């Protein structure tokens, strides 16, 4: 193998050779630069390969032929190899990316680039402290040189600020080095770390402090990092990529190397500085509008996160490398990719990224990088975060874990907001004249290639980390692969993909249905078969429908993996996948940008609560089977319960965390609304089911937690129903109604008795059927009328009779009126209530019940009855493919109404193993409980016979009834002629609003808006710290040093 020294030698040699070349031979110079970088990359790659495939010990390289302390030594181990590979690759790719700039600036710029990469590689390889100093100074000088590559004149100022700071840093570092040498007699890092004298003497301790604080200062810790942000904002994006991906990685590795000098006392310092930087950077990134500065804040934050992890290495054990490298490469790949992408975009605002929509592949790269950065599956950061949470919780470091998750959530907030802009906003007009294809986008193979490489690397590293995790590679999971296959097949017409999707879902169900217990079978049927039925409506969409199928299938893959998960990791991974997929789906709606954002934020917040809950439950155990939750003991158990329940509540949109749902469901596309309402919400209930099955009821400070859930369920039912009453938008009405329905289901589960669970199951099935049906019919109507405002419709019953029938059956089923299936749900509810000791929440539940009639009547009346509008006189029934699933649902509802035992009976029997008492008796057609009885077939027959008899009687006495025209009504002696003034629809329940409107005060919305405003304002306030004056930045640095010193003194 080639010695690692050649990495440095090649760069230096090439830089010297460049000096010998004539100025005009730029092409040759550029070729030489690329060759050198390519060679360096190849050397690193061979080392990585060697370490990965053989059990090679780290190789020491003695430069002067003698071991330390008499000469400088370098080391090449797995970590060094991987990082130099990263640095060299980024260097190579950036050199490619910089082709035009380098050719224009000539050999000097190329030499500086080579030196910069060499300095970074040197930082990684060297084991000598003074050598480290030299490489750091080289890095500083070359950085200052490379900043000048930028076309942005402001970069000059940024470079000078950097030089000021690096001067101060080098003063600190040199003094530290010389005194440390004085005390220990060596400059070798390992020798110094092993010298007991260093920390024993006062001088030694101060020397160690100066060395470490100087190195940490190079990591851009908050608040001494204003200079770095200026560089990120103004430097050439290719240099931004190097600065973020390569410099950050190299310096953090140096810190990791040198940290043992300071002893164990420095670990908390590193953690503290790191986490503070992570939190504040993300906070400050919130109000940013410049893409590169935003990326800068994010980079600084990510390095802070890695520093915090470095500080935790005492507890991370063997997983330390897996976690630290996972986070590091995630940031490196994503940031390099994003900076390169930003170089293709002409304008600097966040909305300017909307031009990426012209290039689906670039958009895909963009979203991949964002997901990598946030640490979503299947990327390395996801595995790393899981292990980190597991180990931190195992050591009881929950505060740190909470801070990390909070920071990540804020980061996800601004990153996905940005993605929303890119997908939904119009780019700012760059120039006058018509927009042309490719406007605002600068492309070229030398720019596309690095981005593509980063994209491939992101997925490759995801695969690698999955492989290393020892937890089953997500990228090998069949459902996920199936979903990802649609990325490749996205060029096919929509109907082909739709057929494939339906085939995949039903096929998977047929293959696996025998593996589920009855409870899971119900969920599997809803997810897979139910999903297929909804997908029938997707045949309506023509064209290619780019992006729809990967997103939808990602959601379904997540859902399937959720019910198939047996351990906490699989569950959590599936949870995040389905969240991600559904986010993309929701984002497709025309006006859904803010709602999709609030959806993903609540969902991720919930997911992090789940992560923390699982981590707490596992107590550091490598594997946590889901039924292992049952073994969690006091005093942890109730906290685990609270965290998991919070997470699941975000998905069921329980009151308080419900505010994302109405917009997300209402603004989604016609066939997406039923997916995210009828199907997706069930994931939260499934989570609750798993939680309650394994953990049962828990008490926290004497409060029964299931009792709290009861209240939440009841209040959700009330708030959901009440809000639905006052909506003018049909889909929003249905969306609020879902909040109420999920409240009922949660209430049932929280009752913790046999019938309560049966009631929840009944609600789960029913809600899927009728909410999917209603969303489809309302979607069909909205498609035909071009509006979702109910008061602008009316009288559609004659034009859209099938949609009307679907809505009619749907509202009878929801309201629980016999003889349809909703009644069964109510009957079980009452029996379940009687079986429990609960009293007061029942009042809320009873109050919520009849309110459903209000919004349901409003829905059917204002849309289908009343006066037909002039502009709607010629519209037709909804399209066939949208009506077809509705008719299937109607049939299902009728069948379930007559023979509910078909499904319920099995579940009822199965529930006996959890609650042996209080099941139902199934004798013939009669269903009876301990308290009452119910005979669905009799009811249907009796009602049918009475109805038919009376109908026949009316037909007989009223056989000559004449149909009349629309306005043939008695109307105060006048003849009305305008449907708009005759159709009573707007503000339909005005008296009700007067009486109970105060209950709909949007307290939750105000609360969350208050929180986001607070964060934004705090970020906006704190970022004024960065005045832009280089001198102030130097003050910040000194203040930072003094503050850390004082805090250490105090500790």
């Amino acid at each position, binding site marked *: 193998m080639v010695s690692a020294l050649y990495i440095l030698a090649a760069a230096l040699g090439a830089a010297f050779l460049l000096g010998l070349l004539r100025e005009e031979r730029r092409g040759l110079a550029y070729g030489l630069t690329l060759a050198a970088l390519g060679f360096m990359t190849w050397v690193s790659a061979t080392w990585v390969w060697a370490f990965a495939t053989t059990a090679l010990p780290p190789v020491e390289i003695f430069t002067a032929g003698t071991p330390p302390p008499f000469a400088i030594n370098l080391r090449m181990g797995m970590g060094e190899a991987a990082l130099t590979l990263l640095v060299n690759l980024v260097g190579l790719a950036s050199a490619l990316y910089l082709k035009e700039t380098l050719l224009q600036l000539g050999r000097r710029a190329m030499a500086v680039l080579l030196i910069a990469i060499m300095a970074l590689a040197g930082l990684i390889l060297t084991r000598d402290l003074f050598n480290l100093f030299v490489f750091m100074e080289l890095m500083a000088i070359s950085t200052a040189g490379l900043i000048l590559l930028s076309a942005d004149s402001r970069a000059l100022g940024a470079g000078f600020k950097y030089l000021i700071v690096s001067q101060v840093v080098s003063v600190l570092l040199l003094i530290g080095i010389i005194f440390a040498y004085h005390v220990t007699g060596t400059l070798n890092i390992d020798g110094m770390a092993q010298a007991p004298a260093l920390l024993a003497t006062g001088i030694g301790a101060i020397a160690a402090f100066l060395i470490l604080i100087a190195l940490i200062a190079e990591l851009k810790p908050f608040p001494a990092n204003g200079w770095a942000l200026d560089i990120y904002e103004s430097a050439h994006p290719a240099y931004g990529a190097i600065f973020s991906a390569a410099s950050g990685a190299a310096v953090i590795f140096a810190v990791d190397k040198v940290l043992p000098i300071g002893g164990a006392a420095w670990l908390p310092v590193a953690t503290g500085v790191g986490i503070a930087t992570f939190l504040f950077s993300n906070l400050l990134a919130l109000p940013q509008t410049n893409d590169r500065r935003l990326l800068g804040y994010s980079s600084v934050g990510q390095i802070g996160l890695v520093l915090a992890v470095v500080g935790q290495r005492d507890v991370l054990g063997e997983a330390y490398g897996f976690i630290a490298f996972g986070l590091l490469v995630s940031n490196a790949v994503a940031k390099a990719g994003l900076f390169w992408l930003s170089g293709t975009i002409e304008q600097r605002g966040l909305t300017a990224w909307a031009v990426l929509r012209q290039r689906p592949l670039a958009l895909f790269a963009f979203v991949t990088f964002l997901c990598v950065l946030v640490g979503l599956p299947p990327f390395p950061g996801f595995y790393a975060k899981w292990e980190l949470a597991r180990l931190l919780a195992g050591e009881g470091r929950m505060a740190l874990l909470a801070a990390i998750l909070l920071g990540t959530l804020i980061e996800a907030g601004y990153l996905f907001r940005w993605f929303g802009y890119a997908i939904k906003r119009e780019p700012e007009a760059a120039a006058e004249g018509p927009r042309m294809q490719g406007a605002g986008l600068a492309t070229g193979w030398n720019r596309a290639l690095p981005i593509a490489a980063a994209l491939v690397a992101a997925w490759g590293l995801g695969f690698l980390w999955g492989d290393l995790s020892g937890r089953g590679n997500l990228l090998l999971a069949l459902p996920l692969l199936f979903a990802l296959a649609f990325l490749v097949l996205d060029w096919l017409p929509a109907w082909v993909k739709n057929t494939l999707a339906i085939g995949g879902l039903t096929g998977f169900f047929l293959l696996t249905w025998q593996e589920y217990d009855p409870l899971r079978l119900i969920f599997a049927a809803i997810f897979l078969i139910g999903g297929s039925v909804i997908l029938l409506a997707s045949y309506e969409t023509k064209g290619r429908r780019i992006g729809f199928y990967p997103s939808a299938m990602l959601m379904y893959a997540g859902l399937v993996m959720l019910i198939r998960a047996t351990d906490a990791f699989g569950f959590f991974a599936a949870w995040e996948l389905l969240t991600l997929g559904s986010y993309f789906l929701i984002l497709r709606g025309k006006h859904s940008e803010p709602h999709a954002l609030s959806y993903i934020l609540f969902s991720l917040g919930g997911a992090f609560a789940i992560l923390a809950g699982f981590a707490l439950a596992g107590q550091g155990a490598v594997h946590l089977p889901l039924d292992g939750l049952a073994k969690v003991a006091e005093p942890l158990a109730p906290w685990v319960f609270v965290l998991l329940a919070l997470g699941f509540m975000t998905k069921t949109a329980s009151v308080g965390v419900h505010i994302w749902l109405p917009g997300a469901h209402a603004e989604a596309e016609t066939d997406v609304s039923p997916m995210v309402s009828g199907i997706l919400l069930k994931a939260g209930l499934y989570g609750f089911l798993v939680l309650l099955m394994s953990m049962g009821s828990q008490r926290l400070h004497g409060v029964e937690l299931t009792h709290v859930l009861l209240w939440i369920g009841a209040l959700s039912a009330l708030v959901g129903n009440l809000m639905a009453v006052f909506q003018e938008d049909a889909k929003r009405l249905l969306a609020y109604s879902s909040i109420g329905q999920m409240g009922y289901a949660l209430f049932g589960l929280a009752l913790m008795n046999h019938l309560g669970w049966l009631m929840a199951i009944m609600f789960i099935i029913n809600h899927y059927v009728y909410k999917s049906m209603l969303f489809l019919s309302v979607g069909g109507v909205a498609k035909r009328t071009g509006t979702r405002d109910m008061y602008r419709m009316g009288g559609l*019953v*004659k034009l859209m009779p099938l949609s009307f029938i679907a809505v*009619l059956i749907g509202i009878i089923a929801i*309201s629980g*009126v*016999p003889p349809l299936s909703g*009644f069964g749900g109510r*009957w079980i509810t*009452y*029996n379940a209530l*009687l079986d429990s000791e609960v009293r*007061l929440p*029942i*009042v809320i539940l*009873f*109050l919520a*019940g*009849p*309110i459903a*009639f*209000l919004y349901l*009547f*409003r829905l*059917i*009346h204002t849309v289908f*009855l*009343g006066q037909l509008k002039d502009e709607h006189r010629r519209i037709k029934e909804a399209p066939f493919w949208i009506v077809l699933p509705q008719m299937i649902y109607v049939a299902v509802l009728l069948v379930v109404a007559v023979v509910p035992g078909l499904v319920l009976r099995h579940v009822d029997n199965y529930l006996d193993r959890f609650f042996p008492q209080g099941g139902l008796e199934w004798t*013939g057609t*009669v269903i009876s409980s301990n*308290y*009452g009885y*119910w005979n669905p077939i*009799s*009811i249907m027959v*009796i*009602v049918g016979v*009475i*109805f038919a008899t*009376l*109908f026949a009687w*009316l037909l007989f*006495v*009223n056989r*000559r*009834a*004449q*149909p*009349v025209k*629309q*306005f043939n*009504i*008695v*109307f105060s002696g006048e003849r009305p002629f305008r449907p708009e003034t*005759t*159709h*009573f629809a707007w503000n*339909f329940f005005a*008296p*009700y609003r007067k*009486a109970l409107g105060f209950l709909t005060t949007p307290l939750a919305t105000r609360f969350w808006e208050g929180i986001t405003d607070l964060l934004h304002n705090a970020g906006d306030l704190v970022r004024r710290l960065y005045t832009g004056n280089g001198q102030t930045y130097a003050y910040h640095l000194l203040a930072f040093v003094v503050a850390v010193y004082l805090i250490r003194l105090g500790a």
Partner: protein
Amino acid sequence: MPFDWMKIPYALLTLFIVFNFGMLLNALIQKIGARVGRRYGVPIWQNYADLIKNYGLRSSITHGVMYYLGPVFRLTGGVGLLLFVPTIYGSEMFSNLSFAGDLILALYFVFFGTLGMALGAGESGHPNAAIGITRGLSQVTAAELPFALAVFSVALQYQTFSITDIVAVQQAGFTSWTLFTNPLAVAAAMLSFLGSMMRPPFDVVLAPQEIPIGPPTEYHSSYLALMQTNRAIFPIAKIVLYMSLFFGGAASWPVFFLKVFAIYMVSVLVGVAFPRFRVEQSIRWFLIWAVPLGVLSIVLV
């Protein structure tokens, strides 16, 4: 399960008795109301006359299918409600079709007719129909709540949803009536009862005196006749429920007539003495005065 076909003629007999009783009772109540207002009032057979006249009317129009079916829904609701509840305690003959379901069925079937009616009236396109329905629905959400709580309280008290069982427990003398064993529940239920009888102060839904409003606005001839038939049956069916749950039920027809009359009179007495509430006022009234009683009855039972 073999079906006892004799149940059908028996049920029809119950229906016949209740229908006639309801026709007469309605007229009587109207008359009492008129006399309190110093008017003479209608003759006792007036409702029969109206009914025959309406069935006999020839002019007849329809606005559509739902409009046509509205009264059918309405009457099905009334008849169904009556037949799902055993009328006379201890009598196999007048236990009607209660084998199909218990108290909960009766509670929810109340809405069947209301819903169908509302849809039918809605199709007529008359704004006043819709306004009446929104008022009615708004009021019912608040008015039904104390009743639901009271019913649940009674079910808790007796640990059953079977109406027959509930009546059975109350047969040991009138002190065993729910009225005395669970007075809070009964109080709550009776306040709710005022709201559901379409009499003042809670009759703004129909507002029969001032303007033609609510579902009957556009219905005429045989449609109206069907609804009038229901008007005779439905209140009685509902009172039967109250009677069975709270006042010991009825073991014979005379007791039945007496108790139904007495219960009906409660709403009449209140009705003639108080002016009308607006909808939001009545909602607040129920929530402030009736619901706390219901809550107490649930907590204390």
